[in-house]
């Protein structure tokens, strides 16, 4: 039987839901989390695990930088090995327009205290020796050595375990079917295993957040998009940083285990809940990888898979309350970068719920922005 009553109910057991559960539990909140499958079964367990602070908007840079500070101490804080590794991120520029934008990004990032610099084309191989700079047409890059990656499944489990230690109740294989609202206030959450009375619901259902919001009559602008990714056999360690190109819509890195993991965003991908793997992807990704690192031609691909990006019109997340229903808190719409900002986002959402105010401003990320037309698009994304 599930718990009859809770102060807060979280829908979704990905990185966002589990990190919020932890941040609430350590603040003494009585919290319940429902995940319809296993933990990290959604986008989180399928994601690249990349952690990047090189963004184009101040708010994303700050969220990512604060998250990195948390990631740096997270293994100790949660007492779990999450394969966190600061190998840096190399962001490639292929056009003069990109060079101009990247230099602007670097100056904003540096102003906010990030250790990042612009590299000329002939400096790129100092960072990643095997990259064929000429063949890929890179004319510059930006480089931040404190960016990195972690294992998304293990990070989620680490947060969930620590949350439970602090009293959170996490129910996997339990699906939220409805949310009862009376006079604009939340009364209870209905699942396939029973009901839990609560006044506050956090909507952290990733690409399915739109469906959860519909249960209480709130319309979210989020759209799901399939995003594909693959892994090679393990190689000896040759690649320290994550390499990423917005121009080619591609990124890849090497895991602690030695596999090269990389994804390519198909610009023609229609919005859908499809997460089947395609042959088209494996061909495109292989062409890119063998052009980027010619040595990879002989490396075996062992598996490919796909997950859903939860995309908002401006590629920025939706955080905080909504006007129509009291106690209905959004923590979704993370597009292709929810893993890396989750530690700080979770802290802010917990602060909002417990103290009613946050240590970094998040009003600009409220759902209201779409209704009021205050939209600044994040430029540095693999779409």
């Amino acid at each position: 039987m599930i718990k009859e009553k809770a102060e807060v109910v979280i829908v979704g057991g990905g990185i966002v839901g589990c990190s919020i559960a932890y941040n609430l539990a350590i603040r003494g909140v009585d919290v319940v989390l429902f995940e319809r499958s296993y933990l990290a079964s959604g986008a989180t367990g399928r994601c690249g695990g990349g952690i990047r602070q090189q963004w184009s908007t101040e708010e994303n840079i700050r969220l990512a930088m604060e998250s990195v500070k948390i990631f740096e101490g997270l293994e100790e804080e949660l007492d779990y090995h999450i394969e966190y590794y600061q190998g840096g991120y190399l962001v490639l520029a292929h056009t003069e327009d990109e060079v101009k934008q990247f230099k602007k990004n670097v100056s904003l990032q540096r102003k906010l205290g990030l250790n990042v610099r612009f590299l000329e084309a002939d400096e790129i191989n100092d960072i990643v020796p095997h990259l064929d700079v000429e063949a890929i047409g890179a004319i510059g890059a930006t480089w931040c050595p404190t960016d990195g990656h972690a294992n998304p499944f293990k990070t989620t489990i680490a947060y969930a375990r620590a949350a439970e230690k602090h009293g959170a109740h996490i129910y996997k294989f339990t699906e939220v079917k409805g949310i009862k609202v009376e006079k604009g206030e939340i009364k209870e959450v209905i699942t396939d295993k029973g009901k839990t009375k609560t006044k506050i619901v956090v909507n952290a259902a990733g690409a399915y957040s739109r469906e959860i919001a519909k249960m209480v009559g709130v319309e979210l602008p989020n759209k799901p998009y399939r995003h594909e990714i693959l892994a090679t056999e393990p190689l000896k360690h040759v690649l320290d940083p994550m390499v990423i190109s917005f121009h080619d819509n591609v990124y890849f890195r090497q895991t602690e285990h030695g596999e090269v993991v990389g994804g390519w965003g198909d610009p023609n991908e229609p919005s859908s809940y499809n997460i089947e793997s395609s042959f088209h992807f494996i061909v495109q990704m292989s062409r890119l990888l063998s052009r980027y690192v010619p040595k990879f031609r002989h490396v075996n691909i062992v598996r490919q898979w796909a997950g859903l990006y939860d995309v908002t019109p401006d590629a920025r997340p939706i955080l905080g309350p909504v006007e129509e229903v009291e106690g209905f808190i959004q923590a979704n719409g993370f597009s292709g970068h929810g893993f890396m900002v989750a530690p700080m986002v979770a802290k802010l959402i917990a602060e909002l719920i417990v103290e009613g105010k946050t240590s970094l401003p998040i009003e600009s990320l409220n759902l209201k922005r779409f209704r009021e037309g205050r939209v600044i698009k994040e430029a540095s994304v693999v779409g």
Partner: protein
Amino acid sequence: MEKKDKIIVCRCEDITYDEIVQAIREGFTTPDEIKRVLRCGMGPCQGRTCMRLIQRIIAKELNKNPAEIKMPKVRPPLRPSPIGLFAGEKNDKRES
């Protein structure tokens, strides 16, 4: 038990019977979760050798019928194949 401890269930990733039972007792109760926490099923054989065994171990631990334990999705490609092959390169010989 002494002997079972050393039984290797996943040869590719060198995972023992005992490690799998421990993971199940820690709450990783599906083949999907075991795969992600222990890496068994992620080796070159992609779980062809070990996943059925893991399904049976879970069934035994949870007192269920193996048929009730859902197996992870088989992920393409069916056999590990070189990047150059998918990229459509003619000469796929290994350089020395």
